[in-house]
């Protein structure tokens, strides 16, 4: 005889299997039917007549659906599939949590990236499913309050095009404006990043072996080259720089950075992947507390940049 520690209530297991299908959005009629069919087949009194069996299973399904409804869970049937409209439980969100979610969802809606929009939509649905009604209403009203619609509205078509190039893993012949000059490069588009108002195409310049970030409005033309990228592995230039004094003590490593040496009054930072324009602008800000160590040509470029800036004051 089984003791209570091993006894199981089938009704409990069945309703949880049914709920699991509903939560995973996989509650098509056939899957739900199979939960209850196996239950009957396990039973000693096997029913041979298929029609009778189907009717019996339908009655059982209805009973379980009624249990859900009486418990207060809303479900609906759409195209032979049961869908959950409210949850068995709700996650406790504070007003601040809902506000944070509304910021992310509102901004996400305005980024012209279909995959991202889909991910954010799924996230929203999954979270709404586990939210009480009052929180749902608050979220919906907060989403409509937030306006991020100024984001990148003029550039949606161009963003879409660049996005396709990135996912297709192509090599581009790209022409863009840089310091009022037209520059042509052979590059591999990597990803789109977004600033407050400007989207950028990050590319890997195949000849110079460096990452470049190009503001989309500066792109003049893009032409797909016939050969596709052979390998995803690429050599990006690694820049090593030294930070001195107080900056060495408080510096927080950025994405793509590693700590090299750490001395009494200095640290060296190994940076890879940061577009050079951005890196130069950032390191200039650190003034005399920063010095590029290697590679030599980047160090020389930085010295040149400092000289060019000094020259501005001597010219006038």
């Amino acid at each position, binding site marked *: 005889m089984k003791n209570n520690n091993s006894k199981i209530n089938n009704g*409990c297991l069945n309703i949880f299997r049914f709920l699991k299908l509903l939560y995973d959005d996989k509650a098509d009629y056939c899957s739900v039917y199979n939960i209850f069919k196996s239950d009957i087949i396990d039973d000693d009194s096997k029913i041979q007549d298929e029609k009778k069996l189907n009717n019996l299973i339908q009655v059982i399904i209805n009973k379980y659906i009624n249990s859900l409804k009486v418990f207060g869970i809303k479900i609906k049937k759409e195209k032979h599939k049961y869908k959950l409209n409210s949850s068995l439980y709700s996650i406790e969100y504070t007003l601040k949590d809902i506000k944070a979610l509304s910021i992310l969802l509102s901004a996400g809606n305005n980024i012209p*990236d279909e995959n991202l929009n889909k991910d954010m939509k799924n996230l929203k649905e999954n979270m709404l499913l586990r939210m009480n009604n009052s929180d749902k209403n608050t979220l919906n009203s907060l989403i409509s309050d937030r306006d991020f619609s100024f984001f990148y509205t003029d550039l949606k078509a161009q963003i879409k095009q660049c996005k396709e190039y990135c996912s297709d893993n192509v090599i581009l012949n790209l022409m863009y404006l840089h310091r009022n000059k037209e520059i042509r490069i052979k590059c591999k588009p990597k990803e789109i990043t977004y600033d407050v108002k400007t989207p950028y195409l990050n590319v890997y310049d195949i000849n110079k072996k460096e990452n470049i970030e190009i503001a989309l409005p500066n792109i003049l033309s893009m032409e797909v080259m016939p050969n596709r990228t052979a390998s995803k592995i690429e050599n990006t230039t690694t820049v090593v720089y030294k930070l001195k004094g107080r900056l060495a003590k408080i510096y*927080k490593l950025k994405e793509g950075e590693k700590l090299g040496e750490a001395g009494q009054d200095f640290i060296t930072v190994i940076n890879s992947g940061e577009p050079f324009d951005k890196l130069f602008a950032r390191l200039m800000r650190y003034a005399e507390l920063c010095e590029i160590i290697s590679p030599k040509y980047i160090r020389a470029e930085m010295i040149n940049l400092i000289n060019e800036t000094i020259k501005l004051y001597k010219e006038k």
Partner: protein
Amino acid sequence: MKRFMETNTVTHNLMSFSGFKSMLIFSMLVHNPKTYEEIKQALEENEYLKETVSIDTIRIYMNSLKQAGCNIKKLHEGRTVKYYIDSHPFELKITDKQAKSIIKVYKAISKSIEISDFLILNDFFTKISAYITNEDLKTKLQNISPLSNINAEMVEELIRYTKNRNEITILYNAKNSGKKKEIDIVVDKMSISNGKLHIAGYNSEYHNYSEFLVSNIIRIISVNLKAPKLVLPEFVVQYEYQKEDNASFQPFENEIVLEETDTHVIVEIKSRNKFIIMQRILSLSSRCRVISPDNYKEEILGILKNMKEGYFEEQ
């Protein structure tokens, strides 16, 4: 079901009672410890069940819930044992793709939101990271905010004091000197720069406008609510910027464009913190030349010369 709608009573023909009881026990125990007696009482008092069940029956339901994928834990309070569901099959799951998209959205908006928004987003990320299984993404989301690892209550207090421009005394961990010291400051502004939260204000000890890392503030010692509100001196610098290609010049919040042609802009930048102006000017490097005041022009030129010397000293 029709009859239920009319009479609000249920029968075995209408619904599965064991399914109903399972859901009731589940919802009672999700992150909410209960004794067997409390569960028993709730089943007895339920308007549809009104059923007396034995402790053994409850035990069978608990086993079934475990088998259904619920992780039931015990909590000992003196001699009383309570049970609660710690995790279950219907938990929210944030996929890797969704987590990456959240990070991408956050990066896109992080330069255009308020400190108070950073604060709530930081709390939210901490909360939802529990639903992310990929450890790398979980850590990334937990640490992405410049406010991660900073006491949220203290940040809220600082936001309030900054709005009122109060004089506060902070215990500050000055990493430069390695000493902890008390600093009096009339707080003026909070900002994110270089991925870190800073608070700026007038330092009455040194009589200058300084910026402090909030992560280095150990605690706020006192607030002088009646402190005279100082009119803080503001630095005004004008610079000329050679525009980049056909991109429009994007002034910072503390900047105004005085003049603009196709190739150049004349910008006026204002700040109580000279250091912030210096960083802005240097980051624009060879496209930017300070026009006025003359002494600031000399100061920037001096910094640039020091930078150059730094490269040749150690060669």
